[in-house]
């Protein structure tokens, strides 16, 4: 379709790309600010990857331990991120998370309860107090369903008031956005196609919120669904925005490794929170060997104390299985590399010894279900086999913390996993769901304020023609490259060369190879027609993944230290000077360029929340002497 006469056109105040937790929260906020909103997603409404979040949503409500407050949460988040977090994002997140959870409850979320009838909170890796609001182990599903139902509730109001449920807010399911359109340097809309029919769609809107989630499909073993192809990252790059710190990827320590078909699927951290222990093929509980110095005073160094912690958390240090994710992932990786792994290249995770079958089924229902039905393993009787899986990208679109506005592009906003900065070099479990809500809301608000201040920005015919031609391109070629094959090759490269442990030489090799695939991908051809054609869809997804992989490999090559989700075999230690550096990726239309940029320094009032001796482990002596910026 190149004739714009038949083109499906829509006009909205805000277009939201992605219908996961962040996208839906942004939509609700923008709608409540009185704007018209289009929610565009690649899947059906309610299928977003957010449903996979199991453990819970971290918010310092203090329902279980009243010592908890936003400052403790902030400290935990910064520690988890190895102080590479944008302090302002971490601060906003810690302060606003409880309100976001309470609001969900008003919209119908039914969290598990405490004795007094409040929202129950559970322990999780890296969190000092029980902090995660949860519903069994399907918290993400609860969040997405609640948001979905909130949107339906708002649409019902519109139906009552205007006789049209979709007057102010409409969901465009199964639509892929291929381009963010700009006029006069500002966002003017988004262009894409309907997956069902292949027909093209134009959204005219002065503000676009990107909430597309992660990039996992760039990797071979991942917990992400097919949707995690880094669309938002690439759309932002192409629109002129920056990506920050793309080298930081979280490998969740415990993904299923067997059987083949479920490789990568997550085993929630709650399994360890509820008392699961990690052992190698020799039967050793190996995590005691891997407690880094910075955590020595918080984690038990012997089994007796670790076991006591489950009963008395005030007088014992926590078990090392609950160390931050990056530590556990690296530990498992080391054990497997040292030949102490299981037959299928993982380690054992066992809850059956500590908990009764009944308790396991009650507290970890979907885990039991998942192992029993997908793998034929009864976790109440036998251990699970687990290993690291690509789970989350800490890096993402560089944004202004307060408004979630993308730096460098007026009218563009980003929230959730696609945005960078909040989690630093490593995300704490449970911080993701509240990140979605806190910054989803801020993005919706930011977009609403922007639209009120700027008004419409019409799309030009030439922009439409260009965008349309790109979509048609794969059909104009025959006998070209197969998108499936290229995708597999890319995954091999990232898995082998940009994976959990990296070296300079391998990264250099990866960059060359990715460039080669990029060249070949320009020649992809597609069989069949436009109607729900997965080969055609993959051609676009692949282009996005290539940009992401390039950003990651290039940033990783430059960062000569190991921190959080970035481990360099040739630079094993953490380096305080590198902590002051963010890597900013931008796209010049041909290749990704990386530049170093100073990380904003902690202001004094936040600096003072920490014990100086703790900061000394992360910061240079000059920074300490300064005592935070003013």
């Amino acid at each position, binding site marked *: 379709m190149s004739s714009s006469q038949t083109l499906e056109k829509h006009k909205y105040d805000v277009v939201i790309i992605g219908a996961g937790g962040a996208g839906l929260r942004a939509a609700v906020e923008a709608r409540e600010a009185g704007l018209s909103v289009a929610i565009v997603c690649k*899947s059906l*409404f*309610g*299928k977003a*990857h957010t*449903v*996979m979040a199991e453990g819970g949503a971290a918010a310092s*409500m203090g329902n279980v331990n009243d010592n908890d407050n936003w400052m403790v949460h902030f400290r935990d988040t910064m520690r988890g991120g190895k102080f590479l977090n944008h302090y302002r994002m971490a601060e906003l997140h810690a302060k606003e998370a*409880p*309100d976001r959870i*309470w*609001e969900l*409850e*008003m919209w*119908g979320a*039914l969290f*598990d*309860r405490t004795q*007094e*009838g*409040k929202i*129950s909170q559970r322990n999780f890796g890296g969190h000092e107090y029980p902090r995660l609001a949860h*519903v069994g182990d*399907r918290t993400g*599903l*609860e969040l997405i*369903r609640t948001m979905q*139902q909130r949107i*339906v*509730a708002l*649409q*019902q109001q519109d139906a009552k008031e205007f006789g049209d449920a979709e007057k102010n807010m409409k969901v465009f399911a199964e639509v892929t956005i291929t381009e963010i359109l700009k006029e006069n340097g500002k966002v003017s809309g988004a262009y894409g196609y309907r997956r*069902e029919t292949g027909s093209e769609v134009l959204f005219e809107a002065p503000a676009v919120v990107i909430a597309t989630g992660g990039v996992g499909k760039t990797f071979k073993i991942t917990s992400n*669904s097919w*949707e995690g192809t880094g669309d938002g990252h690439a759309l932002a790059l192409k629109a002129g925005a920056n990506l920050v710190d793309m080298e930081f990827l979280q490998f969740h320590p415990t993904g299923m490794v*067997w*059987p*083949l*078909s*479920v490789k990568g*699927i*997550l085993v929630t951290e709650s399994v360890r929170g509820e008392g699961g222990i990690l052992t190698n093929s020799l039967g050793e509980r190996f995590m005691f060997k891997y407690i880094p110095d910075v955590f020595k005073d918080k984690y038990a160094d012997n089994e007796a104390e670790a076991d006591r912690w489950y009963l008395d958390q005030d007088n014992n240090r926590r078990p090392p299985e609950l160390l931050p994710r990056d530590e556990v992932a690296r530990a498992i990786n080391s054990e497997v590399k040292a030949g102490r792994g299981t037959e299928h290249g993982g380690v054992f995770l066992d809850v059956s010894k500590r908990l009764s079958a009944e308790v396991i089924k009650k507290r970890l229902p*979907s885990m039991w*279900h*998942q192992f029993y*039905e*997908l*793998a*034929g393993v009864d976790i109440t009787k036998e251990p699970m086999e687990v290993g690291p899986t690509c789970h989350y990208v800490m890096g993402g679109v560089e944004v202004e913390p307060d408004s979630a506005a993308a730096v460098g592009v007026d009218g563009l906003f980003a929230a959730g996993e696609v945005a960078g900065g909040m989690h630093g070099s490593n995300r704490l479990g449970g911080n993701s769901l509240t990140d979605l809500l806190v910054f989803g809301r801020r993005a919706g608000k930011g977009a609403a304020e922007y639209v009120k201040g700027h008004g419409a920005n019409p799309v030009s015919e030439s922009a439409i023609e260009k965008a349309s031609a790109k979509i048609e391109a794969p059909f104009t070629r025959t006998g070209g490259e*197969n998108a*499936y094959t290229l995708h597999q090759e890319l995954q091999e490269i990232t898995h082998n060369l940009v994976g959990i442990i990296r070296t300079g030489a391998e990264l250099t090799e990866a960059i060359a190879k990715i460039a080669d695939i990029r060249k070949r991908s320009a020649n992809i051809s*597609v*069989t*069949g027609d436009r*109607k*729900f*054609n*997965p*080969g*055609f869809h993959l051609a676009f997804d692949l282009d996005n993944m290539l940009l992401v992989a390039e950003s990651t490999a290039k940033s990783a090559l430059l960062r000569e230290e190991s921190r959080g989700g970035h481990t360099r075999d040739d630079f094993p230690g953490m380096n305080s000077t590198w902590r002051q550096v963010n890597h900013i990726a931008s796209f010049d239309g041909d290749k990704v360029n990386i530049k170093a940029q100073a990380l904003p320094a902690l202001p004094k009032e936040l600096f003072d929340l920490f014990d100086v001796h703790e900061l000394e482990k992360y910061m240079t002596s000059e920074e300490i002497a300064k005592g935070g910026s003013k």
Partner: protein
Amino acid sequence: MARTLKLRIWRGDDKTGGLQDVTVEANHGEVVLDIIHRVQATQMGDLAVRWNCKAGKCGSCSMEINGKPRLACMTQVAAYPEDETITITPLRAFPVIKDLVTDVSFNFKKAMEIPSLQMPEGLKPGEPRMQQVDVERSQEFRKCIECFLCQNTCHVIRDHEENKKSFAGPRFFIRIAELDMHPLDMLRNRKKTAQEEHGLGLCNITKCCTEVCPEHIKITDNAIIPMKERVADEKYDPIRWLGSKIRRREEVL
């Protein structure tokens, strides 16, 4: 451990279509969705199928495998004998779009027809207090992953297209039950509307919805039948009706 698998996959659209034979390799431990992906990558690049999480949590890959409504990601190939041909078709209660993808918009329309949760006026965020035993019933229904297999298998609409107007279907009966059992919901006419607007009375308790539910929600026993009993309290039980006129039970309970 590879084995050769014979498949019959339905391909077509809303106008024409039929079953096509395919032979494909299968590895140990694989599920039907893996096989479909292999067919896609090697033989039918444009074979349409919906899927997302591949872990039984999102409810996207609903289809019919050997005539049974199932999630393809939760169906082990090993469950079928070596010599058996596995037949894969799209859901048969909804209009087909292409190949294994159907138009499930019926369900989103129905979702819109169920009145939302109504919290007590003046209750502020952070204030709700609910006991675990009081939320557990509703929590079971919120496990629903909206795969719509129950909707697809329910003969009320599967076998009678004309009932679609007046029948919300099992997925939305559990939604109504969830809200009616919610400790704080203020909307108290859900029983009446369940019967009069959403077609609860059309259900004849043949339990296929429960049989196909991948989340093992006891749709019939825990939602539909309790709702039918609640409806009976209000509409079909003269003694209770009288009782409710004499003292306002709803407040008491």
